[in-house]
């Protein structure tokens, strides 16, 4: 009897006012996204009209002649993020595999907490550490030896500098490591234990099991972790600004200074004089959103197509 009433009550539709409220709250996110885009487009309109599509393909950035283009910054943003990902992904997955081992001991527990704490360090502190510790270290122990040996190879050439595309990528890779490791660990832990056991029962070693079975099973989730990390890397501002060298050029070497979309906005916005200059910066903001969105959509499509492949 009591059961019946409870069921009947829970099956009743919630009052309409409540439904309206939840719908409004749910709509808030897409609406604010739309508002932000509209606002940026409106504020950036002078630059959009003045430079047209050429804004995206020009590498010029000259506030004196008012000659503006986004290409150098798009390159800087995408290059730092991709290099950071290339550096962090193997390390992150390695850490995740270690943390996900079933025989988790105390050591693993504390390492896990340590990795998660890395995510709690504010960007600006990462920036300071990068300026005072990492940049000098990278200069002396990585860039100079590499440049001395492979200086003639284009991407490694040029005079070595502490503040460079490479240093910025390196600090980014440390910053995205916790996301990669923590999410991948959870994904790997969620792989059914029967898979591991079946593989071991067929004679596979730990490595063969990990490569042949565990990682393929966790592939999609690790890919999701990568997308999350990439989102963070693309938008990261302050730590990158402090070590990338802030030169609005497409560098020919990874050890040369560069600039990212987020950094140039943060650096130049307060001192931008004139309508065209500030609207060009705002347009860069739009471009950054576009880049992030494109990456996310591409990633979603990829995830979906692999998921479909797996289900087919």
């Amino acid at each position, binding site marked *: 009897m009591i059961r019946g009433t409870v069921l009947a009550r829970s099956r009743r539709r919630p009052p309409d006012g409540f439904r309206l409220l939840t719908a409004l709250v749910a709509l808030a996110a897409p609406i604010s996204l739309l508002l932000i885009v509209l606002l940026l487009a409106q504020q950036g309109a002078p630059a959009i009209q003045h430079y047209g599509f050429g804004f995206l393909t020009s590498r010029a950035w000259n506030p004196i002649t008012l000659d503006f283009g986004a290409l150098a910054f798009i390159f800087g943003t995408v290059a730092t993020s991709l290099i950071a990902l290339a550096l962090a992904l193997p390390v992150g997955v390695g850490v995740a595999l270690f943390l996900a081992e079933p025989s988790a001991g105390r050591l693993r527990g504390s390492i896990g907490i340590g990795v998660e704490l890395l995510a709690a360090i504010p960007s600006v502190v990462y920036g300071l550490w990068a300026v005072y510790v990492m940049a000098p270290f990278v200069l002396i122990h990585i860039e100079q030896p590499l440049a001395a040996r492979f200086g003639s190879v284009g991407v490694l050439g040029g005079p070595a500098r502490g503040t460079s595309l490479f240093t910025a990528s390196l600090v980014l890779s440390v910053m995205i490591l916790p996301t990669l490791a923590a999410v991948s660990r959870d994904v790997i832990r969620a792989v059914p234990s029967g*898979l591991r*056991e079946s*593989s071991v*029962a067929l*004679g596979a*070693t730990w490595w063969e099991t990990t490569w042949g079975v565990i990682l393929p*099973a966790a592939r999609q989730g690790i890919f999701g972790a990568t997308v999350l990390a990439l989102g963070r890397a693309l938008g990261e501002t302050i730590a990158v600004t402090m070590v990338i060298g802030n030169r609005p050029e497409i560098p020919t070497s990874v050890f040369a200074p560069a600039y990212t979309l987020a950094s140039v906005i943060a650096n130049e916005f307060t001192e931008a004089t004139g309508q065209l200059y500030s609207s060009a910066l705002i347009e860069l903001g739009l471009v950054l959103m576009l880049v992030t969105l494109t990456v996310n959509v591409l990633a979603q499509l990829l995830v979906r197509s692999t998921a479909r492949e*797996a*289900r*087919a």
Partner: protein
Amino acid sequence: MEGASPAKLEVSSLSFYYGRFRALKDISLDIPENRVTALIGPSGCGKTTLLRVFNRMYDLVSKARAEGSVRLDGMEVTETTRLLELRQKVGMVFQRPSPFPLSIYDNVAFAPRLLGWRRQQVAEAVETAITDAALWDEVKDRLKDPAASLSGGQQQRLSIARCLAVKPEVILMDEPCSALDPVATLKIEDLIDRLARQYTIVIVTHNMQQAARVADFTAFMLMDTDERYGQLIEFAPTTDLFNKPTDPRTEGYITGRFG
């Protein structure tokens, strides 16, 4: 049916520990070659534990340790370091089918590739194994499809094919039908019947009709009421064990279950 057959696995005075907990005490039995042996007994009596000693699966459990001896054709299973060879000789089928996230073909090719077989050799082994697992007609046109697209019963036959591919001598099965419907179960039982001529099969089952149907020999295990270790109560040809059990505890268990 149960003519004299040489022992394939000789278990003597086997005890097993999970850390300080003793899960098996003093088990001795000879598992006959090219026959089906069933392990029955109430939940927690150590059937899975015993089965997992035979292919050293307990290596995955930290602080687990076996005492005593299990010999496979003269190889001391509890001490060998040649695990790949042991697991090639002793295959295992689990309770839940767990296809690897690979194609049907690659699932079956997994173990042959571990052994470093050549491409042609692998291809032949895969076809033979899938055929022997009575799955060939159902999958021959879709070998490149993901294994997860098969039905539960097909997946379990794929698991069997996966371990047949490296031509094992012993096949261990831990409640292989408990996740399957009656029709799929029947297919697996038929398969076990057919494989029994060439392989030594050890099967754990909760279903005594199943034991009576498929097994030539049956071992009844029981947990000690005080110390909770598992022990072997009776091991006999299946018809004898079910029709004239010598131990009252065996009789109690099977009549309780049947009656």
